[in-house]
């Protein structure tokens, strides 16, 4: 056994990330404050986009870890540890989410971001939210107290699952206790359902209910698919960085990257399948209660963005990932991952930003246009910095790879 002093990993990177995170989060917070004062919801959306992006990655990692446990996967054992470090982002994200939860309680317009939270908010052509029969019908679900309870519950579920999976895995490093593996498998088989429920609830509450008239049973599955894609892309970039920084050099091989690439391809197809089916069914049935959601995404600058998703988020990565070389050549796989992450952000914009704003025109409303605000970038970079800081801190709490996991040798010796 090695008796050297434990090596410290990622200290510089962690400090840098913390610094960047604090500065940019502070800047995004400034935007948040401005929006708060001016009663403008757009800077709050920046904050929501930032959280949605990093949360989707953490949720995707939680899903993928549990899927690997349930399927008794061997090859990704060394990657699983990186996901477990990623779990440490959940508490950070919960803290970052609190300002959004405070809006309905502290702001003079509780419905500043989620317009249903304030009965006097105006609807295009419908009077106000309070008079809206659809809102009245949905009130037992869409009310501020229940919303808050659900949000806390969703985060609590994620944090609880993540904590146990991390703890057992880290414990195996020291004790080599096989029961940890069994426990993790059992928890994961239940955890997948808890996680699916929590992610669905989060997606419905935070994104779908922005335009609360709309409904789709597929929405939770969309969020799952999007999260998986984001998590896989980050995992690939991360593994390449960790190899070049020496942390996983010689340990993580081409075959691991190849398999992540295959999973990226699979989930690219899955995301397209879910998104397309949702669109296709709404298109074909042509019921106005549903089609408006897609209609507003064809107006005011959103049409090119919608097309961008079809081609940029599906067709191009799909065709590129079909090719063997793009899964094994390092720079190509990193480039395609970065590409997917970029379009994942656009997908989140596309789901979050467009909304009807009452206006004096023929339609009675305009659509909030597609804009990339400086605060969006600040939130994405800032929250990312904090998450990466949490990741780097976690890196020193356990071995770089689960050295005593029963499948570690299969993973180390893995060839395609």
């Amino acid at each position, binding site marked *: 056994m090695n008796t050297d002093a434990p090596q410290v990993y990622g200290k510089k990177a962690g400090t840098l990330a913390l610094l960047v995170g604090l500065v940019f989060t502070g800047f995004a917070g400034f935007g948040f404050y401005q929006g708060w004062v001016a009663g403008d919801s757009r800077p709050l959306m920046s904050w929501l986009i930032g959280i949605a992006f990093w949360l989707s990655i953490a949720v995707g990692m939680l899903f993928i870890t549990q899927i690997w446990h349930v399927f008794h996967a061997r090859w990704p054992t060394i990657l699983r540890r990186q996901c477990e470090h990623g779990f440490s982002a959940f508490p950070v994200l919960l803290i970052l989410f609190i300002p959004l939860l405070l809006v309905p309680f502290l702001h003079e317009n509780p419905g500043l971001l989620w317009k249903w939270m304030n009965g006097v908010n105006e609807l295009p052509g419908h009077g106000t939210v309070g008079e809206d029969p659809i809102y009245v019908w949905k009130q037992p679900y869409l009310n501020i107290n229940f919303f808050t309870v659900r949000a806390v519950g969703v985060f609590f579920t994620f944090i609880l699952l993540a904590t146990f999976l991390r703890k057992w895995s880290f414990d195996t490093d020291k004790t080599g206790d096989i029961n940890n593996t069994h426990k993790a498998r059992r928890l994961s088989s239940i955890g997948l359902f808890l996680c699916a429920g929590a992610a669905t609830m989060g997606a419905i509450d935070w994104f779908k209910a922005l335009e609360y008239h709309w409904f789709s049973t597929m929405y939770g599955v969309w969020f799952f698919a999007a999260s998986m894609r984001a998590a896989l892309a980050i995992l690939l970039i991360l593994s390449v960085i960790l190899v070049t920084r020496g942390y996983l050099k010689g340990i993580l091989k081409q075959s691991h990257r190849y398999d992540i690439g295959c999973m990226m391809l699979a989930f690219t197809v899955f995301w397209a399948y879910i998104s*397309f089916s949702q669109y*296709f069914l709404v*298109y*074909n049935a*042509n019921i106005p209660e549903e089609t408006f959601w897609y209609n507003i995404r064809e107006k005011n600058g959103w049409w090119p963005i919608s097309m961008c998703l079809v081609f940029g988020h599906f067709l191009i990565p799909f065709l590129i990932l*079909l090719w*063997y070389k793009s899964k094994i050549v390092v720079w190509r796989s990193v480039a395609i991952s970065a590409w997917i992450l970029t379009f994942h952000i656009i997908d989140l914009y596309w789901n979050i930003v467009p909304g009807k704003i009452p206006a004096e025109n023929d339609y009675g409303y305009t659509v909030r246009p597609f804009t990339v605000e400086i605060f969006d970038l600040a939130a994405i970079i800032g929250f990312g910095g904090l998450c990466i800081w949490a990741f780097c801190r976690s890196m020193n709490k356990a071995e770089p790879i689960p050295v005593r996991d029963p499948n570690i040798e299969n993973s180390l010796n893995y*060839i395609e």
Partner: protein
Amino acid sequence: MSVPHAIIASFPDTPSFYHAAEKVRDAGYKKWDTYSSFPVHGMPQAQGQPRSKVPIFTFCGGITGFALGLSIVWYMNYFDYPLIVGGKPFFSPVFPFPIMYELTILLAAFGTLGGMFLTNLLPQHHNPFFESDTFLEVAGDRLLIAIEARDPKFDVQSTRQFLESIGGTNIEEITV
């Protein structure tokens, strides 16, 4: 008449079979192959074979299918006999999607199977190997390496010695 076709050698277990294949590769033989009733993990690399070309056939099949699906819907429902149904446009990339999708997969699958046959040079109604009783035992558990006479380095004596030197047993000459 007995023109040599190949020399075959048997190996007792998978690891020795695998490592023998690596040695044949390193000795510079070109026209040779391994024979086993199951695919051996990593054998293409041990034999120094490139990645299979089958996906190219798949891709061509898929593209053909996609184009075919797109064009039949356009031709039949837009060009040749426009039908007004359900307030939908005569042509749009949305509703024919299932057709294009299915035809893509159908033709890609045919391309794949055809590609497998073509790259393996099958069907083949006869091969001198089938005359050998030892060769037929590959169906059970025999593991064989055969070096063929058309290999430029082939020489009845030296090849036989080489196969012995890498651990081959039951060395047998197959003739045409």
